Every structure is written in structure tokens, then in C-alpha cells.
């Protein structure tokens, strides 16, 4: 969080390790993936992936900085997609209604998660695991009930299409990339520039002390859960509009992918430390690693191995840096999960 700009201070910032990890994988794939990987079309390929993941990863990362976790995003993506597809595709109602309902379902699930976490002592991992299953069940059950199918088509035109699900800038980049950049800028403002960010870090550092210091921890926790669930629903909705269709499906890969991006981005799993820029870099790193494989000549069967090793390497690198940054911080003990 320190905002000093000395070279030493720069290295001590949470995003330093993430930036180095990003450079490392860029070099790796520039060598093994060749030129196409760095051409505009190639860049669009991993930017698009990063954008969809990043819009979810940043609020999830903020939750993790605040010491919580949200697994239910995995189910919110298909929920958002299916909601808009059923309302505006199956029933043919106005797209804006579909968008509004999809987002408000995000808000509702986020509220339920947040209130359950705040009011009960159940850890958020378990609460959101429960809502993951529950929402999966709702999506499958309702969709089949309403449409007798698990795949619903949707055609959107006009401003809604341009705003949520189209390609921009030469037809390579999804409009989601712009959302991602814009939202990232907003998050950077609120987390690192406005005073609210301080509250999130304080909460993650020591929730009791944060409350004693006058921070409305309960309200903030609920807001963060609403943010992550709604962002996931938003991504699902945009995907449905972009791809003209929505499927009922797990969406579980978003969970692990987002968590990995956040951790590669330098957020401490135990809370209290991290940065939006770091998460941003971490998301790009993850997208490059997973997409870059396609540009190499490695046998596809080994891609999981390469991803696993690269990610572990990135986190290790990141950790070495964090250690350097906090070399004097030794008394902080805590559950290391």
C-alpha cells in the first residue's frame, strides 16, 4: 500500500513480484510461442481471456484482502448468462430488463452470502461453497423447467450489444476489455486513492481492531460480497450477449482461475496485503500462461503440467519479493492455509 516512489519502495510494493512474474512468462512465451503471440491478434487472444477473468478476480481479490473468500462466483457466471438469455432470449422481453434482472440476481446472491458470513460464524469458504451448489441447482432446475433445454439462444442488437457484448477496435478486442480497464481504474481509485481502500486492508489485517477503529466491518463485508457476485453475473451476462447463447454448466474453473490470478498478483491468502494493480498483472499472467500454450509447439497433453509449474514459479518469485518487503515483519503469525 505504501505509495512511496523510491526505487527501493517500488520493489517493496505488492505488485512488484506480480510484475516480474508477468515479464517472466511474457519472455517465456515470446521465446517458445514466436511472433504471432505478440501481434495484435495474438495479444487480443489473451487480453480477452484476462478481461473476463479480471472483472471477477479484482473484487474476489478485494474480498481476499479483507480476509474472506467467495467460491460462489463459479455459479454466478452461468446464472448471469442464463438469466439474460431466458428473459431476453426465451421470453423475448427487452434486453435492458434482462440485464437489470441478471445484475440484481448478482446483488441478491451477494447479499445472502454477505449476511450469512457476517451473522453466522461459518467461514466464508463454506458459506459460498453452499451457495455455489445452491445456485448451480437453481440455474439447472429453473432453466430446464422454463425452457426444457439447457442451452438458450439470445440475439441482441443495438446499444446493448455494443455496450456489453461486441468486439471493438478492429474487431479483435471484446468490449469486456474496456470494462475491465475502466473497472480496474475505478477499483484502483477506490482501493488505493480514496480512503475506503484503507478500510479493506485494515479489516484483513485485524477485523476486531478494524471494527474498534470505527470501520463498519459488517457493511463493508457485505458490500464486497455483493461486488464479487454481481461482477460474476455481469461477466456471464456479457458472455451470453456476445456469444448469443447461454449454457447451464459448472463454471467451476472460474473459481480456481480467479484465485490463482489473485495470489499470483501478490495478495496474501491470509488477508491484509495486496493491490489492485498486482491482481491486474496476475490476471494477465494467468491468461498468458493458459493461452500462450496454444502458440507453442508443446504437446497439448502436457499443458496442465506446464501451467502448474509456471504458476508455482510465479508465486514463489512473488513470495521471495514479499519476504524482502516485509523482512522486518516477523511477529505476524496466523493461520497459514
Amino acid at each position, binding site marked *: 500500500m505504501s505509495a512511496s516512489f523510491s526505487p527501493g519502495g517500488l520493489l517493496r510494493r505488492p505488485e512488484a513480484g506480480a510484475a516480474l512474474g508477468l515479464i517472466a512468462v511474457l519472455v517465456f512465451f515470446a521465446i517458445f510461442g514466436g511472433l504471432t503471440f505478440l501481434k495484435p491478434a495474438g495479444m487480443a487472444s489473451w487480453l480477452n481471456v484476462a478481461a473476463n477473468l479480471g472483472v471477477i478476480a479484482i473484487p474476489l481479490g478485494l474480498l481476499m484482502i479483507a480476509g474472506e473468500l467467495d467460491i460462489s462466483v463459479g455459479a454466478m457466471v452461468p446464472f448471469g448468462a442464463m438469466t439474460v438469455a431466458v428473459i431476453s432470449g426465451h421470453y423475448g422481453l427487452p434486453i435492458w430488463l434482462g440485464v437489470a434482472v441478471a445484475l440484481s440476481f448478482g446483488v441478491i446472491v451477494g447479499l445472502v452470502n454477505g449476511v450469512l458470513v457476517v451473522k453466522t460464524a461459518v467461514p466464508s469458504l463454506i458459506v459460498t461453497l453452499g451457495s455455489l451448489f445452491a445456485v448451480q441447482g437453481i440455474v439447472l432446475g429453473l432453466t430446464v423447467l422454463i425452457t426444457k433445454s439447457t442451452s438458450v439462444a439470445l440475439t441482441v442488437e443495438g446499444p446493448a450489444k455494443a455496450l456489453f457484448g461486441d468486439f471493438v477496435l478492429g474487431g479483435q478486442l471484446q468490449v469486456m476489455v474496456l470494462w475491465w480497464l475502466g473497472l480496474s481504474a475505478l477499483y484502483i481509485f477506490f482501493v488505493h486513492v*480514496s480512503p475506503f481502500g484503507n478500510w479493506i486492508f485494515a479489516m484483513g489485517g485485524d477485523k476486531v481492531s478494524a471494527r474498534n477503529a470505527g470501520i463498519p466491518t459488517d457493511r463493508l463485508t457485505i458490500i464486497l460480497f455483493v461486488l464479487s457476485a454481481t461482477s460474476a453475473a455481469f461477466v456471464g451476462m456479457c458472455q451470453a450477449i456476445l456469444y448469443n447463447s447461454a449454457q447451464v454448466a459448472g463454471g467451476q474453473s472460474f473459481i480456481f482461475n480467479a484465485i490463482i490470478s489473485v495470489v499470483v498478483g501478490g495478495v496474501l491468502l491470509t488477508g491484509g496485503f495486496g493491490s489492485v494493480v498486482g491482481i491486474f498483472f496476475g490476471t494477465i499472467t494467468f491468461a498468458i500462461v493458459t493461452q500462450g500454450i496454444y502458440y507453442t509447439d508443446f504437446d497439448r497433453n502436457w499443458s496442465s503440467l506446464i501451467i502448474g509449474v509456471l504458476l508455482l514459479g510465479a508465486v514463489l518469485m512473488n513470495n521471495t519479493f514479499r519476504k524482502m518487503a*516485509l523482512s522486518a515483519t516477523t511477529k505476524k503469525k496466523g493461520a497459514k492455509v
Partner: protein
Amino acid sequence: MTAPILALRGVNKSFGPIDVLHDITLEVKPGEVLCLLGDNGAGKSTLIKIMSGVHQPSSGMIEMDGQPVSFPTPRVAAEAGISTVHQFGGTFPLMSIGRSFFVGVEPTWGWGPFRVYDRKRANAIAVKAVQDMGITRISDGDRLVGGLSGGERQSLAIARAVHFGARVLILDEPTAALGVKQATHVLRIVNEAKRRGLAVIFITHQVMHAMAVGDHFAVLIRGAVAADFKKGEKTREEITDLMAGGASMASLEAEIEGFMASHDGHPPPPAE
């Protein structure tokens, strides 16, 4: 006689089936240091948590300037001018000194939703406040709190409370982990706050510290106010006995000192 700033009237507190505080009536006046004394588990921390909005009383009333008030959250109490250093926690190891100092009350510039955290000002104020506490080594407000020693962190927390303590300053065992020098600094700060007309509530287990700053003493024994007296009304020995929960400490102290004397400061031969 000045009117009390903060007063508890017949406050009770229980956690589920456990009664922790019984019918507490206490008041603190501006420019006065109230020393809250008592054995481990007597309920001192619980009492001041009620005053600072962390806990709600099970029954009874809190009055400020003679008006009944309630502090549903610590924020409300802070806004009423009550500033507390709790016994545990209070600083954030992974945050910078400036940010940690201003947690929850960040200085900003700009307007509306675009208020911007004023890092420069926060750091400058925080560093100055800490240096005023005698910790002159700290000069960079961007340093992480985790890099400070326990005593330095404690001083930071106290500096924070003093800075925001518009009217009432509550310190829960602020000197427990501190070295002699740091503890003396804290005592000086308490006196300084008193001089500025704040009301101070000071919890300690060290009679010397209590006697050095206290104007008014309240002793809790098993959750009830067992004694409430002014400076000079009781001797050090009487206060010590009260702090020990009513036990006669004289005999215990005599025992230890007697032992030392009988061996003339030298250890006995090792036991077989």
C-alpha cells in the same frame, strides 16, 4: 466542581450466562485521570469496551455531559470524542504507519465520491504524533507497522488515540509491554492530556504507574466497584491489596522479601 464528561449509571453486562459486570456506576471529569484497577478477569476491559461502543450494556445507562447516550458501534463513540487504546491489537502490521494511524478517519481532499486519501498529510501528522511520544527514530510514514518493535507499535496506538481523543482518552494497560523509558513517556502523555482538559481512563496493574498519574481510583473486584477514592485517600499498601482483589498482599510481599532477607540476597545451597 466540574461536571462529569462520561458517566456509567448502574451498568450490568453479561455474556450469555456469564455475568461480568454488576451495577457499575462511575464517572470521569475533564482534566482528571481515572485509574481503573483490579485483578485479572475483574472486568476492566469489558467496562471500557462498553464505554467505547464495542459492547452494549445488558442494562444500565451511559451518560455524556449529563445526557443519556448509546454507542451502538465504536464509530459512534469515536465521533462522540471517545478514543480508546485496547489491550490487544489496534495496529495493522501490513499497513503503513500513516495509514494505520488514520484507519477509519482518513484525511482526504477533493469532494463527494472522489475524495482522495491525503497520504502526505496523513504521514506527516502520524510521524509528528509518534515523535511527540518520544519515538524519534520514526521519520518515514510509509514504513510498514510490522517493522516496528512492540513498544513502538504500542506508542503508535497511543499516539493515535491521543490525536483523536477530543474529550475522553481510554488506555487499557498501555504500559504492559513497554520498557521503562517508553512507559515513562506514556505517563507523561497522560499528564499532558490531563493538562489539556481531557478526561483520561487509565488501566494498569502497576501501582507505581497508577499512583504517578491517577487523580481518582476505581477498583473492580469480580465485576463490581469495590472501592472508589481520590488520590491521597489510601496508602500504596491499601491500593495494592485492593488491586489484588482484596487479598492481603502485605503477607505475600513480606514472604518474598523476607526470604530474600533471610538469605541475605544469596541463594541457598542447591537442594539435594
